[in-house]
């Protein structure tokens, strides 16, 4: 195993039952991602990008294969074990932001810190919100924020725990081109500053082009 490797998948396969019979969504995927590397997974709709992301992040279990994330064997952990690993080492940015509607911007950012039991949650959250330029909107609820602002809160939330790996699922999918570009810039800037490993699912070629490596996915397999 590469000493620098932070995320490694070996012969990853995911099958699901459907009315048409057994479907293979991810087919024998192996990959190795080094620390601080940025990787884009691209492909057409239905190619299996999001499923691969879910498997790599431990949100879903593979039918077969092995995943090592930040030195831990994901596939050997139960759901709660994977959750604890996520709390310590993983950050997420989603296409639909996924902010908790009943929490304010700063409370949303505090949430992962609180889950990890950090006492300095508010100060750290405020600092991170300042880094994404939202220090003046900390007390706003998600519904009072624009799409771009909501995604910046989500990015702040993803970076606030200083994760080893940050997974982003179509982070610009719900945003207009201009806002999308600014969000992507923010994401890459923060990534560079924090030396985080970035795994990004997108079908936006320009976004993918900013990554160090692009993995093309087709019918569940990497090309």
């Amino acid at each position: 195993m590469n000493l620098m490797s932070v995320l490694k998948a070996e012969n990853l396969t995911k099958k699901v039952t459907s009315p048409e019979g057994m479907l293979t969504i991810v087919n024998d995927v192996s990959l190795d991602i080094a620390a601080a590397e940025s990787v884009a997974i691209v492909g057409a709709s239905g190619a299996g990008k999001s499923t691969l992301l879910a498997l790599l992040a431990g949100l879903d279990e593979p039918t077969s294969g092995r995943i090592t994330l930040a030195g831990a064997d994901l596939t050997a952990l139960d759901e709660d074990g994977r959750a604890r690993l996520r709390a310590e080492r993983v950050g997420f940015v989603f296409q639909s932001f996924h902010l908790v509607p009943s929490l304010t911007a700063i409370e949303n950012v505090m949430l992962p810190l609180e889950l990890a039991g950090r006492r300095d949650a508010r100060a750290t959250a405020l600092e991170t919100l300042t880094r994404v330029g939202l220090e003046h909107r900390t007390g706003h609820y998600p519904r009072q924020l624009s799409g771009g602002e909501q995604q910046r809160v989500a990015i702040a939330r993803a970076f606030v725990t200083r994760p080893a790996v940050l997974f982003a699922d179509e982070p610009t999918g719900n945003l207009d081109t201009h806002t999308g570009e600014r969000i992507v810039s923010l994401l890459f800037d923060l990534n560079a500053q924090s030396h985080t490993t970035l795994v990004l699912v997108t079908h936006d070629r320009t976004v993918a082009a900013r990554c160090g490596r692009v993995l093309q996915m087709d019918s569940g397999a990497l090309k």
Partner: protein
Amino acid sequence: MNALAIALRTLLREWKSGELGVLVLAITVAVAALTGVGFLVDRIGIAVDNQAGEVLAADLVLESAQPIDDRAIVEAQGRGLRVARKTGLLSVVFNGDASQLSAVRAVSSAYPLRGKVMVSNEPFGAPTLATGIPGRGEVWPESRLAAAIGATIGSELSIGASKFRVSHILISRPDQGATFVELAPAVLMNDEDIAGTQLIQPGSRLTRSQLFAGPRDEIKSFSEWIKTHKKESERLLDVDETAPQIKSAIDRSGRFLSLASLVAVLLCAIAVAMAARRYVQRHLDSVALMKTLGATRAFTLTVSLTQLIFVGIIAAIFGSMLGFGAQAWLVVALKGLLKGDLPPPGLAPLGIGFLTAIAVLGGFALPPLLQLSRTPALRVLRRDVGPPAPLVVLAFGPAVLAIAFLIYYVLRDVTFFLAFVGGLAAFVVVVAGAGWLLVKLTKRLRGGVGVSWRYGLANLGRRRTESVVQLTAFAHGIMMLLLLAVVRNDLLNDWKRSLPADTPNFFFINIPPDQHQDFTRFLEERGAERARALPMVRARMTHINGKPVDELKFATPRGKEFATRDQNITWADKLGRDNEITEGRWFTPEDTGKPLVSVSTEYMKELNLKLGDTLQFDIAGDIRTASVSSVRKVKWDSFQPNFFLMFAPGLLEGSQGTWMTATHLDATNPKTISELVRRFPSVSVFNVDDLLRQVRSVIDKALAAVQSVFLFTLLAGLVVLIAAVQASREERRYESAMLRTLGANRSTVLKGLLAEFAALGVLSGILAAAGASVAGVYVARRVLQIPYTPDPWVWIYGLAGGGLLVCFAGWLATRSVVNQPPVLTLRGA
């Protein structure tokens, strides 16, 4: 950070953001309904009991010919009960030369424990409330007695060895006429004077009564104590035994009030179940997100549980306060209806309300919360992923247990409990099944209707599971309210029928056989409605199926008493309307002179008899044997002469006996009675006006109780249903925003939503009316034991009420959704 702290923090945040409002509202309303009904039932129950106690002047009376042990009094006082003593004996009272055999009643200072003694300054004068009891050396003769011996205030009367001054004329006392034995007019004196009269001698016939009164529960447990500790010669009297009319009124109103409580419980359950569902729906995403951010299942479960417990506690506190306030307001608002002072409510309903809220919350909210915690983190990427399907036992088990426990708690009767739970379960199945079909049917219907209706009906069909769940909830709520309305009507009608204005208020016994026709003619000439006149013969049972009764063993003391006591028997060719043959057949003309006897259900049960059994009687030395040819169910509370044993006509005519009859006479015309007494001196006359008045008063109170509790439950039910609709509005939010984005105007969307609610309401109404009609038969006949009258209005109420109510609730709930700019909804989704 521990889960508790974060739970409290998110709770606070969710509270601030209004997210928990609906859950809190639903549980608050449910608890308010439950405790409100509970408080009211409790207070009215106590009031009715107190009123009933007036017949005895106490809640319990221990009666004996021998001095009563101090042990019972000490025990009663130890339990905080009030006690009084009453000694009754017959003695001649003199006013100079005039004399009259009178019922002397010596009472102690606490008398009466229930009810009031009314006195006046002249016989038959205007009554005023007496303060206390006659002082030492004073007596209060009854009007009849005073008139008979010409006594006035200040007269000196001789009773036994003592002389007394008349200080008041007794107009009424609560315990007169509870039984028909009080023939002689009464004179009330102080208990401390009785010894001085020297009337109490060894062998003198007297009745010593120990009176007890106090809070219901205490009386109940004391009654149990006394039953195990009293001597054989002592007799325990309670209201049930003394006045069957009052007992049945209390029983029925009590059962109705229980039913109302049950309705409140079920409404509460429906509200909580709906609110919990909504809570779960709204939190699926947050739980998935929390898990993605690293929360374990136990952690998310702790968070939601803590929230739920806090919400439960807050809602229970608010709810009980609201319930207390609501019933207090109702009592004030209904002051005219609930005559007299209502006792203050006990605290029990508060505890019960709290416990119920927790039981219902646990039963209905816990399973969905357990499910909620199983929501996979994957949901953040794929919204169609929800928690795995639960085990049916886990999902419904706790809810069924909670409801079953509560129903049993209210009913405390295994038969009714099984019937109720069985019926409810059957209704769930039928409603869910019918709902499924009807929802399917609406899919077909929507071809022929306008766009709003099409949209509304399409919604119903598409969200089939949701629709069926809502339908079940609404149908149950409406059904319970309709059921309450149906049986309330039957109960009120039955009570109105039970004591019509011409209920006999005069009983005449000892009418000589050769005078009975003259006697009835006399009554009829004076406009009296004659009730049946029946012959009456004293008899003693000697053998059952050839075996001497002395050698037979009986299961209960009552059975032994029935078999061995001297009893009055009669014969007749016609059956009274208050008698119903349940087995065998009534006498036909061919049966005349045959040795046949018709026996009341009580006798059949206590003596373990069956049709065809032979009974042998000693009728004044004449031995007669007869076989049981029919069983009669007798309405003992009809105020008509009735007998346990009725023989075929033409068999006992030769026996030495007398006749009895009862009639309604205008009591304001005492001339008729005086004339009657002069013409038929041997006839004994009883006026039961006072008892009738007391019975009517209890029934009035019970009536008012039923009315007010019904009204209150109805209101509570409506509010709960509105809260339930409120809980379902989220599902409609997103779609209406979508539709408006697509160009539908507000009114189209609103009409669509209303169409959906109207369809839901009408469907629930139909099912509810059907359910209430079926359940009404059982509840009326078996639980309340009153005749059931099918009421076509149930269908109208169900249909129109269901449609309008759900529509209105739906409009309330979705108004804001439609008025909100769609962008806000879509962005928030």
